[in-house]
Every structure is written in structure tokens, then in C-alpha cells.
């Protein structure tokens, strides 16, 4: 009983959190300031911006054919950034969840450490 309600809470948190992130990445990103940020500005002002490789390693990856920085190629400009935001957020979420699941996987019950957490769902063990 306790396990399933905790499970529900975690699910809810996950969906809420991911939704907020997606809303930010998709709907707010087009309104982001286009001024250069800290390092860009310093690189311009102090004239070392030109040192950046014009054809860096990243341009040789297959993703470069799809994304030009945070904009999807070949779509109307209005949705280029939101689409990129959508893709990036989902990929990042998936990778983090995947790594997290892999890293916290317990091979057997005896591997589980007894935790002093009051809210720990392993109370049901």
C-alpha cells in the first residue's frame, strides 16, 4: 500500500517536473535574450573570439546535419528553437533516468543498504 502510493508520488513528480522543463524549453526559449552571454561578451571585448575553431569536431557529428546549435534545420524559423528545446530536454531526461536506473540497480535484496530515511519506500521490505 505504502509502496504504491510512493510510486504514484514519484510518478507525479516526474511528470510534473518534466512538463515544466518542456514548457520552458519549448515555449519560453524563443523569448530568451539574444545578447551574448558572459564568456561570449568577454571574448568579443578582449578580441579572442576569433580563436574559436570555425570547423570544430562537433560539426563532424551526424547531429550537426539536424541541429544548428539550438535550432532544427529545415523547419520554419518560428519552431526551430522550440523543436530543438523539445528534443534536447527529452534526450537529457531519458539519459539521466537511464543512467540513474543503471547506477541504482540492486542485483539482489541483500545489496540494499538499510537506510535511515523516514520516507524510504524500502520500509515495505
Amino acid at each position, binding site marked *: 500500500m505504502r509502496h504504491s502510493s510512493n510510486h504514484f508520488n514519484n510518478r507525479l513528480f516526474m511528470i510534473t517536473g518534466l512538463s515544466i522543463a518542456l514548457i520552458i524549453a519549448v515555449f519560453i526559449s524563443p523569448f530568451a535574450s539574444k545578447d551574448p552571454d558572459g564568456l561570449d561578451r568577454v571574448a568579443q571585448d*578582449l578580441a579572442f573570439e576569433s580563436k574559436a575553431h570555425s570547423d570544430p569536431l562537433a560539426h563532424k557529428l551526424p547531429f550537426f546535419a539536424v541541429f544548428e546549435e539550438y535550432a532544427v534545420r529545415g523547419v520554419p524559423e518560428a519552431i526551430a528553437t522550440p523543436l530543438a528545446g523539445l528534443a*534536447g530536454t527529452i534526450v537529457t531526461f531519458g539519459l539521466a533516468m537511464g543512467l540513474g536506473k543503471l547506477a541504482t540497480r540492486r542485483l539482489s535484496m541483500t545489496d540494499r543498504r538499510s537506510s535511515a530515511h523516514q520516507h524510504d519506500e524500502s520500509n515495505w521490505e
Partner: protein
Amino acid sequence: MILDCYKFIDCSLSQPTMMLFQPFSINPIGQPIVAMHIPDGFLNVPVMLIAWILSIALIALSLKKVEADYQDRAVPLMGVCAAFIFAAQMINFPIPGGTSGHLMGGTLAGVLLGPWAGSLVMSIVFMVQALIFQDGGIVALGANILNMGLVGTFGGYYLFRTIRNFVDRLQFSRQSPRQSPRQSGHQFKSLIIGTAIASWFSVVFASALVALELALSGTVPLSVGLTAMVGWHMMIGLGEALVTVSTVTFIWRSRPDLFYTSSHKKAQTLSRSVSR
């Protein structure tokens, strides 16, 4: 102001009309270039190598720690944190003076997830940014993970914890003996003060580290680079503190149980509840 900028713009840029309307150079289709992501070319090989070694060592350690200590209920928070930080890093907010800033997120990840899972989360964010969106160089990725991720998840977290414990102790010593701190041993006030200060500091320190790396690479002299980077990032750090505090507050009010507690703290809490 526009004329000043023309002085420094690289002459090989070939979009004069573009430059007229957008004097700060950004890429041809007008997307903001987010940073403090260092592109390939700013740092020399030895500096990048050292950064890679440090980053890989800390990531490997973080992986071991997560495997040993973290419960699977931390996984949703890892996913959400990674997604949120990625998304928030896209949102540049304007800073007076024609510059912009955006959330770095290292301290946020550290406060919510602790330094170990937090570091894994930040590493994933920067990897995705560099590999898929060409944001920050790939060879420079080690340096970017170190500066923007690990400084926050380690330095930011431990500074946060130190301040929080200090404020709690001050608070506790003022209270009457009958009142006791919250079950978890911490107050909201100390959480916020610690978060605000640590997140601001982590941004400023990261910018100083970048200036150091640039100087060691011979890209720009240290004093010049330091003044410029730290100058801007003292302001950008305020934005970081604001966003981090807001996010931490939101999660504290909805799911305080999700916050990371170190095993030391867990043992303390256990002994406290047993002795009652």
C-alpha cells in the same frame, strides 16, 4: 556602443547587414549562443587534458558513490533535474550592459541530489549540449563539465552545507530548549540562505576558473580576463541565486523528502529519533 563593438568583431564574418541590426556576433540564423561554454580553440591541450583528467576522475567517483549509496527513488529527481537544467540553460536573461546570463545549475543539482548524483546529471547535460547542439567544444568538454558542473556540485554543495549548518546552529542556540529543529534537523531559512550564497559563489568562482584556464592557455592575460569574467558573472550569479532559490523552494514545499541527505546526516537523524 555599436561602433565600439565593430572594432572587435572578427573581420572574416561576412554578414554586414546582420551586424547592423545585431552588433554582437551571434550565429547566422540569430540563435543565442549560450555559454560560459568554452568552444574548441580557446584553451590549449595541456589545460584541456588536466580538465579532462579531473572531470573523469570525479565522474567515476560519483558513479561509484551513486551505485553504493543512492536509492532508486532518486532516479526521477535525476531525470527531472537534468531536464530542467537543460531547459533553463536555454533561457538567457538580460544583464545591464548588453550581456546576458543563464542558469548554470551546478549548485541546484548539488543541493537537490547531492554532489554525486548531481555531478552525473550535470555531466549528461553538458554532453548533450556539446555533442548534439555544438554548445561548447567537444575537446573542451572536460573543462566545461569541470567549470560549470563540478564546481557547483562539489564546491557549491559543500559551501551550501557549511552555511546551512552554521545558520541552523545559530538559530537553534537562540531557541528555547523546548523547541527543536524540524525532523530533518534543518530549517527553511538556512536552506535558502545556504542555497543563495552557494549558488552565487559557484558562478563567480567558475568564471574565475575559466579566466585562469584562458590565461594558462595564453588566450588572454589573467588580470584582464579575470576582471572581465568575474565582473559579468557577479551579476549573472544573482540570477543564478534567484532561480536556484525559487526552484529549491518549490521542491521543498512539495516534496521535501526528495532532498539529498548525506549518510552522515541520516545516521544523525536516526540516532536522534531513537533516543527520544
